[in-house]
């Protein structure tokens, strides 16, 4: 898979979250906690599914710690780290 920077991953995540929540990508702030964007358990799992498809990472089996998943930025860093970007 092509190496992606944190910023690239963030852009991809913003697009996907906007699709899941049917909202304008501009409204998805990368430093806002995911629940404050309107993401609940269902939406969060949908996002994890998208991440598996896009980055080949099955994060449901990771610890799902708050530090790694609280914001889009934190999640992008976590993905970048795992994919060796």
């Amino acid at each position: 898979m092509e190496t992606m920077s944190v910023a690239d991953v963030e852009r991809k995540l913003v697009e996907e979250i906007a699709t899941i929540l049917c909202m304008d990508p501009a409204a998805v702030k990368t430093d806002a906690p995911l629940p404050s964007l309107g993401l609940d358990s269902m939406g969060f799992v949908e996002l994890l599914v998208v991440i598996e498809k896009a980055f080949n990472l099955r994060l449901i089996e990771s610890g799902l710690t708050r530090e790694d998943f609280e914001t889009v930025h934190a999640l992008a860093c976590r993905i970048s780290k795992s994919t060796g970007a």
Partner: protein
Amino acid sequence: MKVRLPYSKKKRYLTGIDWIIVALDSMNRRATGGTNASQIVLELSGAVDDNRFCAAVAEFTQLFPVLGGRSTRCWNLAPYWKMPRPGKRVPVTVETFNVAAPEILSALERSVNTAFAEANEHLAFRVFHAGADHHYIAMHFNHRLFDAQGAEAFLDLFHSWYRGEDCRARIERIALTEPAHLCDWKRKFEAGTQLVRMLREFAKTPPLVLPRPSPLKGRSFKFSVMEFNGQEAKAINDRACRESGFLMFLPYALASAVQVLDAAFHARGAKGQDYIVSVSVDMRTPDTAAARLFFNNVSFLFFRVSSAIAGNRKQVMETVRTQMYEQIKSGFPRALHESSMVMRILPASVLSRLLLWPLNGEFASLGLTCVGKGGDRPSKFMDADVVNLFHMPLVPVPPGIGFFVNQFGDRMNVVLSYVDGMLSDADVQQFRADIRRWL
């Protein structure tokens, strides 16, 4: 206030999920004589003026003719919600009672178990005065009209309107239109195939079910309501995040429910092999939440938990998390939504029997619903402080037992709902002690 309602004055087509809810209503009527209903309870501290409240309810509810509709079938065979004739008064019961504080739960139970008098009556408000400054308002509704989130949003809207806010834009945004969904049959049948495949998986072993008391007809539902203050709720949420994962409260709640009820299931000689838990999930997105206030905007997930691991919360959470992931990955909630459109061809009474066919007359071991905070809420309702808000759902039989969690502000409530006689008082006491210990 004059508002323009953007919908057909005559009909609103029902979705497949709406029709399943009608079928569950039929199922509950057949089993217990009750309906597929619920009520939201507001606990208030301060003054509540009965006359003003009754007048406000009467005026507000007349803004929504949909409240007085009923389900019927169109010439094209699609079921729809028939709106009442223009000018016809929406039947909404409003009653007030004085109740001694220790009797409040019994009074609330009587309220939610009360049958609606008319076929087109789906909503009732009851005020219970438990003291000069202590009141409860119950909004009792049939699920044909609202799901849990929709009912909370309706109550919020009522309160905004009561406070004198201009609610025209909010009311006009409410979508009361729905296409007939009589197209894309190939996609619907493919979704149906996916549904059948999954049901076959679930049907391999019979679900563990509590023996139901006999006779069932005429039995009411009983409730155990447990409140957790802000500090306790925060501790529960932190533990759920730590043990189950970020935003993984549902697997945590399900594992706790199974762990806590396992003793009662075995003590009462439950038959079957594995727990099967049906979980209703909200399908609204933030941008559609305000518009999708009426009818049912939910789907379902189903989880199988081996009774051998029921006492091991960590293992249960892991299996539930994995099943939740796989079901969402396979698009199950949407497949159910899609395929249920085909099921609308069946009369509700027939569909209610068909729903029980894969599991040999059963539906699940128990039902579970988690309702989130639902946005910021005013701390006052009318002129009183809102102390708490919780739900009291009648769980369709089968299974006739369910676990309902809601968050209100920084508080959390856990409600156990069951058909009278399914659990003993000792079981319920044990449940309460175990929930405090394990949740």
